[in-house]
């Protein structure tokens, strides 16, 4: 049966929806209309795709990871090189798309939340390119561990607001961004950085990233003349994974694996493995799996990776988890850092710590593959921003 989610109301199976204050409902309705129109607007589509090509640098390459392939001695490993996107990660595909929508809707002020800083940098970059006022909310702890990205955002002309409530990470930055949006809804567009939030954000953000999977399909057809056997991607909110998976979702023989951050282990309380140990709940505007206690208070997530350090997950991933179309596993901080090192040494690619969670799963997956099978890992971002954390870890 062909996959058609979400429904008109924004539901992926039983997940999704619009759990937001009344004040935001008109803004979401306005956005839904503008987004629908953009899909059939050849001028919008041409401008977006031209920007992806001329500014972002798409299509990104598909690189055969020959030494890692030899290392495991089983199936062939390819990397989809989103780390080669302008600004260093896939996030800009979506930031540019949403910014064009904001401009067409007549909004003059852009806000965004950021965890690792990649979405913040992408948004600040798009705002610089189009001359928009830009405010980025970022947890104080994340500002510390991703200082390079904070400096980049400032240089790009954005105001970075430090968020000191709660765990001082992505969850709290998102709360603050929503409060700003509620207050300034008339002139402000909120560019959400992942496939989370109220409808239509999970749908819209997914569709701005499906270019990742579409290119992969085409490039692999060239390289191997076939579909992949496995796709592997890391999942925090889940934007790079869904953009990578979605174009293959009706290709039943393609197995898809999403990797969550298990932190110190999914059996500890220092984890961000939402699907592994969470249960359905509502955070930041949608119903999805969530890490929360028996009273429904949201728990603090932990991951060494700021981009995966989030107690929620996009509603579509919850649906794909329940229907078992995608299988999700956890990778610990230690396993991810080992993969940072291995990928750097064997492929000359320093992955973001987020991305390295997906690489780390190759240790488990590759021994189960056959020589003639093909595995593609989404190399969602580069690791320059993480050099401080990486150096400290290995010192």
């Amino acid at each position, binding site marked *: 049966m062909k996959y058609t989610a979400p429904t008109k109301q924004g539901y992926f199976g039983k997940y999704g*929806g619009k759990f937001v*204050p*009344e004040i935001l409902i008109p803004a979401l309705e306005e956005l839904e209309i503008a987004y629908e129109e953009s899909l059939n607007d050849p001028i919008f589509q041409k401008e977006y795709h031209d920007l992806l090509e001329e500014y972002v640098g798409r299509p990104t390459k598909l690189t055969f990871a020959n030494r890692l392939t030899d290392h495991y001695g089983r199936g062939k490993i390819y990397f989809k090189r989103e780390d080669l996107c302008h600004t260093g990660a896939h996030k800009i595909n979506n930031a540019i798309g949403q910014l064009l929508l904001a401009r067409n809707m007549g909004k003059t002020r852009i806000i965004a939340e950021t965890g690792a800083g990649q979405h913040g940098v992408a948004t600040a970059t798009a705002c610089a390119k189009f001359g928009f006022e830009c405010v980025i909310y970022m947890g104080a702890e994340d500002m510390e561990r991703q200082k390079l990205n904070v400096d980049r955002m400032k240089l790009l002309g954005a105001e970075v607001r430090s968020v000191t409530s709660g765990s001082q990470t992505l*969850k709290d930055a998102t709360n603050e961004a929503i409060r700003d949006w509620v207050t300034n809804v008339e002139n402000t567009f909120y560019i959400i950085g992942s496939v989370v939030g109220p409808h239509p954000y999970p749908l819209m953000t997914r569709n701005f990233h499906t270019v990742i999977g579409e290119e992969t399909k085409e490039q692999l057809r060239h390289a191997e003349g076939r579909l992949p056997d496995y796709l592997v991607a890391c999942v925090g909110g889940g934007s790079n994974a869904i953009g990578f998976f979605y174009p293959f979702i009706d290709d039943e023989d393609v197995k898809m694996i999403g990797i969550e951050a298990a932190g110190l282990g999914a059996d500890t309380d220092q984890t961000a493995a939402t699907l592994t140990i969470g249960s359905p709940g509502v*955070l930041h505007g949608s119903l999805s799996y969530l890490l*929360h206690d028996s009273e*429904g208070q*949201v728990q603090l997530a932990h991951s060494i990776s700021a981009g995966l350090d989030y107690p929620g997950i996009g509603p579509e991933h919850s649906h794909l988890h329940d229907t078992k179309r995608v299988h999700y596993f956890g990778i610990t901080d230690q396993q991810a850092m080992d993969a940072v090192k291995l990928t750097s040494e064997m492929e000359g690619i320093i992955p973001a710590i987020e991305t390295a969670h997906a690489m780390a799963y190759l240790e488990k997956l590759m021994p189960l593959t056959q020589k003639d099978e093909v595995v593609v890992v989404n190399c969602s971002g580069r690791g320059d921003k993480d050099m401080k954390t990486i150096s400290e870890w290995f010192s």
Partner: protein
Amino acid sequence: MITKQKSRVDACFERRSEDSKIMSLFITAGYPDLESTVDLILGFEKNGADIIELGMPFSDPLADGPTIQYASNVAIANGITMKKIFQMVKEVRKSSQIPIILMGYINPVLRYGIDEFCREAAECGADGLILPDSPPEESSLIADAAKNNNLDMIYLVAPNSTDARMKKVDELSSGFVYCVSVTGVTGARQGEEVARSVERFIGRVNQNVTKNPKLVGFGIKNHDDAFIISKQVDGFIVGSALIDAIRKNYPNNGWMDNVFSFVKELKHG
């Protein structure tokens, strides 16, 4: 066979005289400590409160400003639970019939179990629910369970709600309709700013919300604010300013009396 009695909320609005306003006060359950909540509610009633909105704290109150965020965090740190909130309502009911509306975010309610929550809330004597992050779009999740337990579901209208939406909210709501006077988080705006922007909005509310009584809230700091803003509706809601009054006085000697004086002043000037 149980015959449905007139709800405490309906009765409250019916009692209102032409020249008075209904005062609804929001207090976070478990703030400033677990022991004071019941005494605060009873004291509010003595000093002029007509309705209590009892806040069910949530870790991520994204529609609230710093004041209610703070109170929620304190209450969670104090060990508030849904069971304890129900117990507080039960305790109030021993000596008071003041309408109590439970107000909070949907997640703790979902986690408790919607049917169990509505049943137990009604059993302990709560009268209704306000869930600001559960707009009419998502009402199907809880509307039936609330209705089956005779709990009023109170939805919100905001200055940017269309006329059609206001009509829809009026149709879905029972008890009253909560009019959010400005866009923003709770407690965010100053009195004068609120007063200027609110008049046109209230005019539209009165054209479109015709079935339910209307209370107006968000940003009301004192008696003058309250009476200017609620001139054309049934009454007003105060939350953040009341929490601020508690925060300013707690735990000094006689803190509760000072808070009650603030409440009396709110109602009577």
